[in-house]
């Protein structure tokens, strides 16, 4: 049973529960320093170069977080709002909630009952040294304070600082489009994702800040699933505004999902045509999407030992005109993809179909050759 949690408000501390749940908290907060002392995480083995930076950063973080915690207030900055009395009487001491102090010796052994697999080294080895670094890099990069205006070293740049800093200008909202484009449709497992919060090449003067407030923000790169609106609603609005905008002359809306089917595949997919600017991009995306299917051999659920087709194989197949990409247009006719300009294509495409080359022969006399050239 999971240990019950802290009761900070009344000042009670159920030490037992805290002890049980805190060790990993300890280790996180202490990060490098605690780890270094006890060395059961073994991080110093794998990433000794970075762990020092990690440790000092996190130590600073801790101290500042505690400071911040004691300064907790709900009024506007600078005001003595009555809400203060709503807070815990007495200082909110974060330490009483989470004993982040390097704790007594017994803690190590009482580390989460379940996490111990008997081989702490194993944990530490796979526990990415670089993921620790990633975390801290992420933290450090979170604010991208241009520290030039203050005399602090980069190490002091982190979130604990914001209560009283007048000189720091965080221009996180000024997103040059270069930074925007780093928000990719899919998030590969690398630091790019974390750095999307960091601004690249920002300036730190008030003008930029005020410009952000007054001028319209740059058009956003689309992040998958953001803003969190049901796709039904998004598509619906897209259709509606398209109808209305044809009168108003406003630019079209942001999404255009169409179904994509493939001969022999057990299920269909959907793509947002507005994410692509050219046929090649669409083609690449479709290759990726359907690369798990083999010809005539659909991956059945749970079937062991089935063949997986690589993307390159499918591409070869497409290029080798085994498959042809076709679409159904507004009139209900099946057309070969690639004949008309991209914008015209998006406008008239209702759904896509990846046909077998042999079936598509009837579509256009030289469909096979065409597809080799186009796709």
């Amino acid at each position, binding site marked *: *049973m999971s240990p019950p949690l802290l009761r900070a408000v009344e000042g009670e501390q159920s030490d037992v529960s805290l002890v049980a749940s805190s060790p*990993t908290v300890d280790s996180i907060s202490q990060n490098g320093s605690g780890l270094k002392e006890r060395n059961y995480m073994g991080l110093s083995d794998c990433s000794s170069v970075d762990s020092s930076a990690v440790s000092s950063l996190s130590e600073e973080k801790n101290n500042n977080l505690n400071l911040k915690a004691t300064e907790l207030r709900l009024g506007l900055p600078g005001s003595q709002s009555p809400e203060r009395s709503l807070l815990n009487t007495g200082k909110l001491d974060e330490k009483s909630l989470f004993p982040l102090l390097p704790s007594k010796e017994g803690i190590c052994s009482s580390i989460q009952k379940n996490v111990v697999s008997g081989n702490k080294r194993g944990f530490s080895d796979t526990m990415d040294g670089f993921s620790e670094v990633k975390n801290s890099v992420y933290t450090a990069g979170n604010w991208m304070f241009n520290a030039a205006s203050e005399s602090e070293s980069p190490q002091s740049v982190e979130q604990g600082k914001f209560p009283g800093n007048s000189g720091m200008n965080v221009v996180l*909202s000024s997103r040059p489009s270069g930074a925007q484009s780093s928000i990719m449709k899919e998030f590969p497992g690398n630091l790019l994702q974390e750095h999307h919060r960091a601004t690249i090449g920002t300036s730190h003067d008030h003008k930029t800040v005020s410009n952000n407030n007054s001028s*319209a923000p740059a058009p956003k790169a689309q992040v998958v*699933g953001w803003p969190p*609106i049901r796709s039904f*609603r*998004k598509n619906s609005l897209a259709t509606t505004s398209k109808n*209305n905008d044809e009168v108003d002359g406003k630019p079209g809306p942001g999404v255009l999902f169409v179904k994509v089917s493939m001969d022999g595949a057990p299920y269909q997919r959907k793509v947002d045509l507005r994410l692509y600017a050219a046929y090649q991009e669409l083609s690449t995306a479709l290759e990726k999407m359907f690369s798990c299917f083999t010809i005539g051999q659909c991956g059945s659920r749970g079937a062991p030992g089935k063949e997986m087709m690589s993307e390159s194989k499918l591409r070869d197949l497409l290029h080798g005109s085994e498959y042809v990409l076709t679409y159904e247009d507004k009139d209900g006719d099946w057309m070969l993809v690639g004949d008309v300009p991209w914008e015209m294509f998006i406008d008239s495409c209702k759904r896509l179909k990846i046909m077998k080359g042999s079936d598509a022969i009837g579509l256009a006399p030289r469909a096979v050759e065409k597809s080799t050239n186009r796709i």
Partner: protein
Amino acid sequence: MNYFPDEVLEHVFDFLTSHRDRNAVSLVCSLWYRVERFSRQRVFIGNCYAISPEKLITRFPGLKSLTLKGKPHFADFNLVPYDWGGYVQPWIEALAKSRIGLEELRLKRMVVSDDSLELLSRSFANFKTLVLVSCEGFTTDGLAAIAANCRFLRELDLQENEIDDHSGHWLSCFPDSCTSLTSLNFACLKGEINLASLERLVARSPNLRSLRLNRAVPLETLQKILMRAPLLVDLGTGSYVHDPDSETYNKLKTTILKCKSIRNLSGFLEVAPRCLPAIFPICLNLTSLNLSYAAGIHGSELIKLIRHCAKLQRLWILDCIGDKGLEVVASTCNELQELRVFPSDPFGVGHDAVTENGLVAISIGCPKLHSLLYFCQQMTNAALITVARNCPNFIRFRLCILDPTRPDPVTMKPLDDGFGAIVQSCKLLRRLSLSGLLTDQVFLYIGMYAEQLEMLSVAFAGDSDKGMLYVLNGCKKLRKLEIRDCPFGNMALLSDVGKYETMRSLWMSSCEVTLWGCKTLAKVMPRLNVEIINEHDQMEICAEDGQRVEKMYLYRTLVGPRKDAPEFVWNL
């Protein structure tokens, strides 16, 4: 406790309508468990993979009404691949084979096939209510089967489903003998409708109280329908476009005056704003107004309309109403309890979009507000603090700043304090969605103050594992936690593994959790299903443990790993 005969206990239990109360009652002792299970008629299953249909049937032989939810919430935002699961077919099959007299089925985010609908329609003689929300996988053929075979159908409610529309003939499949309809909602259908069939159907349904039309139903038909159904309580218009000088429009105006019972109004999927005055007379009595699909009504006309709606309790609207429009709402709709402001232009530049000012105005004018979904361009701590002070009754507070990591534009600080004020002030808060620039601090506040919190949605927030730990340790009533693009990793995931058995589910995508972390968790918690969803990087058995996991969805279950998972879902 053998003081009372079973019948008395059963009678007492009849008064318990909430699922939680009945669940609690069944835990008291084995006698109560037994009495409760035989008398239970309504069952709610929040995760269809937490239990099997067979177990459900065994325990509740008197089942009449079933509610099932399938895919995780983030499936709404395209984060879950198409084929993840959530099929209703096994449930309907099992129920059909049993002797359960199913009368009501409510599904959310599930995959429903035409075969399932056909089987459903043929297996339960007394079937009365079908509600499908955000489902997919079926066509109008399935609807035709329901219409044709469910002789006592009362409710057919389709909300925001992806339905393949084959033709409008399904409406004609309601037999002439079907006169029991009380609620019909097909607003999400995209295709044509047989208008004559619709009119006839309405004409022979004297108990019809709720009718929501789709885009294909023109204003003329609306007028004819309203003539036949003046007792409607809930109306969703179809295409509301006509020449305001025409006779049809005048007829509509007169007809509407007779519809004194309408309390809910929605639709306007296509709208000619100059025709809006016809509905002003019913605005006075409206308690619920949904204009969130009415992209054709612009700011000033919206405002004109809203000024008539003094009794509104629920308002769903697009952000083209603007801050000024929200001020009108605040001054007019003092009874407002639920407000949802959707973005009309999610990816573009929102000229008419709303900001923190609109929300503050609402909080001043609508003190009864308890549910909020607010998409805005920006938000400030000061505004949130003010809102928290003015509206301490929030149960649901979902704020979505369109730029996901935008700080307070005035102070350039993160929004930790603002959300902190919300959770501190609103002691009954059950659901919270965060956005904007947020650090670990906001999670500290949430862990400390949000004691009733049951569902938390987090995106692009936090600095370290501490953030997630604050929440896991602090929110005792947490049931659903969904996180995307946050720097939470194995430490946070593994710190309190027992917690997840007290929750329905946890979703983490694009975080720092690695395969090793998930494997470890799965190994020590056999009653959790830990699913890894990998669409692109086909994770082989030899995948490195240190690899970050793209999407992880874990949930408690009594029936082990599911057997219908597709290849890209790897159950650890």
